[in-house]
């Protein structure tokens, strides 16, 4: 199957420090791929390259066959890639409906309509309700985002990214700050939402190996800026060297 997101021999240096070194990875349509690695392995740099925020020192980054090096967040969103952040990112003074609407407006290319009344736009309203419904936020549409619980803020953060109708979604530690009991529920919501929204591929950056093992089709492990492993979960977790490097101990079963 064709790769939808791909890096070819990508390296990234910050001064003398080599954050990524000759990394070639690919994510294909229909895949759920996790990127794991200890702190400092280069995960954030890879995410920033994949989302067009950084320009690689060497190599190329492709999204749907075109080079997206440094194209920036807005262009990337327009081309069909959305991302969420490790730390919850919301618009504190906007309501839930307005937050989702901000993405819907971008997706429906209505942002330059200076004089049209947003509240009367049926297409935007319907899409906002649909997205809110998927994430269980339909009862909170009029609440200001800052007043939501931490879990709801997380859902809203992800919901607004889904509202872009992306083909690929990159989730940067979506369960950080979420209790262990709620983590699986949250990831399940994300996967269901992705299916409903027609998302073609999910890239997950995650520290929680139980989640990674449970949902990934493939796991890419980074270590010291290099690809340590690119394997399906079974062989991945069967390799003691990989486990030792990535999490520093054997994974308990």
């Amino acid at each position: 199957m064709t790769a939808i997101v791909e890096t070819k021999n990508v390296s990234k240096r910050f001064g003398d420090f080599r954050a990524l070194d000759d990394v070639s990875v690919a994510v294909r349509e229909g895949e759920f791929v996790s990127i794991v690695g200890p702190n400092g392995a280069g995960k954030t740099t890879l995410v920033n390259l994949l989302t067009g925020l950084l320009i690689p020192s060497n190599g190329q980054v492709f999204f749907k066959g075109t080079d997206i090096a440094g194209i920036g967040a807005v262009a990337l969103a327009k081309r069909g890639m959305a991302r969420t952040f490790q730390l919850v990112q919301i618009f504190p003074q906007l309501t839930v409906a307005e937050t989702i609407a901000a993405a819907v407006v971008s997706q429906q290319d209505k942002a330059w309509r200076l004089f049209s009344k947003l509240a009367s736009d049926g297409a935007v309203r319907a899409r906002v309700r649909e997205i809110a419904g998927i994430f269980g936020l339909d009862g909170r549409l009029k609440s200001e985002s800052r007043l939501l619980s931490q879990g709801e803020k997380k859902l809203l953060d992800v919901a607004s990214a889904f509202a872009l109708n992306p083909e690929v979604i990159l989730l940067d530690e979506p369960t950080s700050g979420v209790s262990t009991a709620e983590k699986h529920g949250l990831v399940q919501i994300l996967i269901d939402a992705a299916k409903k929204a027609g998302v073609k591929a999910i890239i997950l950056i995650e520290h929680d190996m139980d989640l990674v093992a449970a949902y990934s089709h493939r796991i890419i492990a980074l270590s010291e800026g290099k690809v340590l492993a690119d394997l399906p979960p079974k062989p991945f977790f069967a390799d003691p060297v990989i486990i030792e490097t990535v999490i520093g101990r054997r994974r308990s079963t």
Partner: protein
Amino acid sequence: MRGATAMIVAAGVVALGLVPVLAPPFYANLLIPFFGYAIALLGFNLLFGYTGLLSFGHAMFLGLGAYGAAVMAGENGIKSFEVVLLGVALAGALVALPIGLLCVRFIGIFFGMLTLAFGMLTHAILFKFYHLTGGDSGMRVPRMNILGLEFQAYNKIELLAGPFYYYCLGLLVLCGLVMWRIVHSPFGLHLRALSNNAQKAEYLGVRVYQFRLAAFVISAIYGAIGGAILGFRIGLADPEIVHWTHSGHLVFMTVLGGFSSFLGPIAGALALTLLQDQLQSITPYWRFILGAVLAAVVIFLPRGLAGIAGTGAALAKRRAAA
């Protein structure tokens, strides 16, 4: 427009409409600058309250409106105030575009300082280029026709306190309605989003830089229209209109009225116009008292006069519900 806001606006328009009928011409004349400031602040608050960019040089656009009126009407004999308004609005946009291209690359204190620098530069140009601008004497802004009518039977005071007063009131309502549509449009939502969290907004497809620039240009257009009204009233455009303290005056009005509300800056413009007039008639130390008022507002009423109204309305609602 939401019910409560619409009622406040209707009551305000009726009350303002009665001023020339019920009060001596002095008061109607006093309120002309209020209209100029209120229109300018509608734009200023699109930039500050909605987009999160606090300009300390915004008086340059008021100056552009006043000097634009002087050049168009005084130097080139254009008699129609509507043509002058269109001209200064266009000039405001054209001047704001290159300045904004540079300034909106920055946010926070850096944006504030850059706009302050452009404001001071404008002041220096107007002050020093005597042969073009009249230096500290300024340029005369002659009387113009409004809606094609000369009002020859009226002297200047009668014109200002009568037809021109209502003209400005109508213009404020019109500019207010246009701004209301802007802030409640998809564009307005994106401005608020980028003001809340620019990084998140970018990943949701918000064109942060372009939208900041657009808000800057729109605010300049409103500033120029407000400045033309100030120039018409005094009959003069002089460098003091772009002095940095005048930019501070705009910030003062906005903070006093409350920048988190649509009507707040208009309330601030009205309150400061009346307060300044009263204080000037009481004491030569009026600036000292205004400074104390500003300090008190920032400390005790961070949401300004609109905040008091909002709290009052919420209390009344709660009492009615109980």
